[in-house]
């Protein structure tokens, strides 16, 4: 840090650092000397000190502190694991079901008709999910749970 002359004027930045206890002993004693010489500087320091005390006395603690945000944070943090498990389980069951269905002894026409219905339902279901996902993606409040 630049060394200043002992009698050089105190800058506003120095006054702030003095007020906030961010100065070393040498710099502080320079400000102390300046304060002894200048009533204007004393007045300015007293003013900022008063403001500081008043703000500190405000206590931003809300009187009606509501429920913790943890539950909502927890939902988000743990939700992906739940989804992964559900999707993995579904994929395994559906693959197994499709295999059992394909290797069963029923006629090919029945397989074709049932397969078409099942694929149709799955396609409709997937399109709804995709639509919802797109809506969720563009929702600015997606992470806010009320």
């Amino acid at each position, binding site marked *: 840090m630049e060394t200043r002359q002992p009698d050089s004027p105190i800058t506003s930045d120095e006054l702030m650092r003095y007020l906030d206890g*961010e100065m070393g002993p040498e710099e502080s004693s320079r400000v102390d000397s300046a304060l002894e010489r200048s009533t204007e500087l004393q007045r300015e320091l007293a003013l900022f000190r008063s403001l500081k005390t008043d*703000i500190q006395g405000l206590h931003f603690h809300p009187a009606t502190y*509501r429920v913790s*945000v943890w539950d909502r*944070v*927890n939902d988000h943090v743990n939700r992906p694991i739940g989804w992964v498990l559900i999707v993995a389980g579904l994929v395994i069951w559906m693959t197994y079901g499709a295999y059992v269905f394909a290797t069963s002894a029923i006629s090919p026409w029945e397989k074709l008709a049932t397969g078409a219905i099942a694929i149709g339902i799955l396609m409709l279901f997937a399109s709804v999910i995709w639509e919802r996902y797109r809506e969720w993606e563009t929702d600015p409040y997606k*992470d806010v749970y009320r």
Partner: protein
Amino acid sequence: MQRQLELELIRKCKSGQSRFYEPLVRAYEPAGLRLALAMMGNMDDAQDALQMAFIKTYDTLPRFDLRRPFGPWFFQILRNQCRDMLRSRKAKFNVEALGERVDQHPADSDRSPERVRQRSAAKELLWRGLERIGAEHREILVLKELEGFRYAEIAQILEIPEGTVASRLYHARNALREALVRLDAEYP
């Protein structure tokens, strides 16, 4: 929270054990809410910002450098979250929820009706002054006066050079003084 304990919790979270995130959230929630409330001006927006900041913090924990302190890093995310919300939602700092924020535990033990009224009026005036000075001035005052951060930490949170903190504080305090003068408070 102790630094060692905090580090251990962060390590566990980084390894995917999300249940260890809860003590961190609970430890930083009160201070986070104070900063968010100071920036957003009302409880609902402050809680939304805080919640989203905790989620973003968790999502970015894998990139967190364990040599850095967690607090300033979290407050940096929270502060950016508040600013984003103020920009995108046009939320405004307001004094509607004043009753929620007035100190319920005054240092002055005189509880006579006249003294209580004076105290309340003085605080309301200060709140109105804070309302007028803008989020940028308000956030640095909260970080310094209410959270008690050192200049180096404030610089990290606000992403500014350390040498600029004193200057920013001077301007914020001056702005508040001028706002109070305009409100006819006794700040010459």
